[in-house]
């Protein structure tokens, strides 16, 4: 079965600190995605990747960086975390031949 895992599941960070959210997939999918989910906004795409070494900006990339060091791993980096980045973050992977995305369980980030 398709598997996307995220770590940590919960994170409390301080304003101005650096935060790294990690995602691992065992689906061997080329495409990976980072979304954030907020009440009133739904799921919004932050960054995505076509494969190892590739990162692309999504709809709301400001304040975030992404890294795809391998097929399996995709990280989201907040260099200088702000309270407005408090949210639930979801990673997903997708098969290039289909459009279904498989989501991880999410990371709840609180920036104080």
């Amino acid at each position: 079965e398709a598997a996307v895992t995220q770590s940590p599941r919960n994170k409390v960070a301080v304003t101005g600190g650096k935060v790294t959210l990690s995602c691992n997939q065992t689906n061997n999918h080329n495409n990976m995605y980072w979304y954030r989910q907020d009440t009133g906004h739904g799921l919004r795409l932050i960054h995505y990747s076509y494969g190892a070494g590739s990162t692309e900006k999504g709809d709301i990339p400001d304040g975030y960086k992404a890294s795809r060091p391998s097929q399996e791993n995709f990280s989201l980096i907040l260099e200088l975390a702000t309270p407005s980045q408090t949210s639930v973050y979801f990673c997903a992977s997708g098969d290039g031949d289909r459009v279904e995305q498989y989501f991880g369980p999410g990371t709840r980030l609180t920036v104080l």
Partner: protein
Amino acid sequence: SQLAEENLWALSVHEGESVTVNCSYKTSITALQWYRQKSGEGPAQLILIRSNEREKRNGRLRATLDTSSQSSSLSITATRCEDTAVYFCATDDNYAQGLTFGLGTRVSVFP
């Protein structure tokens, strides 16, 4: 911009009843997907319906797509308490750029 949206925030039904969630979208699409998100979990796909399809079924789920009115519906028959979740429609015009999700409709199924 909001390219896909469900038409109601919340619906409540009793077990065994049917429920329908509607969605409208604003761009031409290659496919529309319905996802379900249970509390504390990530979204999970239920049905994918392509632009050349009018109806798709998956067990108790039935999705319809009307490209002329840019709308879709998801019906759940014989609902169960475990169907309680938020249901999203999601569209794509380029799968590699991710999906555009609606805000979701919360469906609550009561015993």
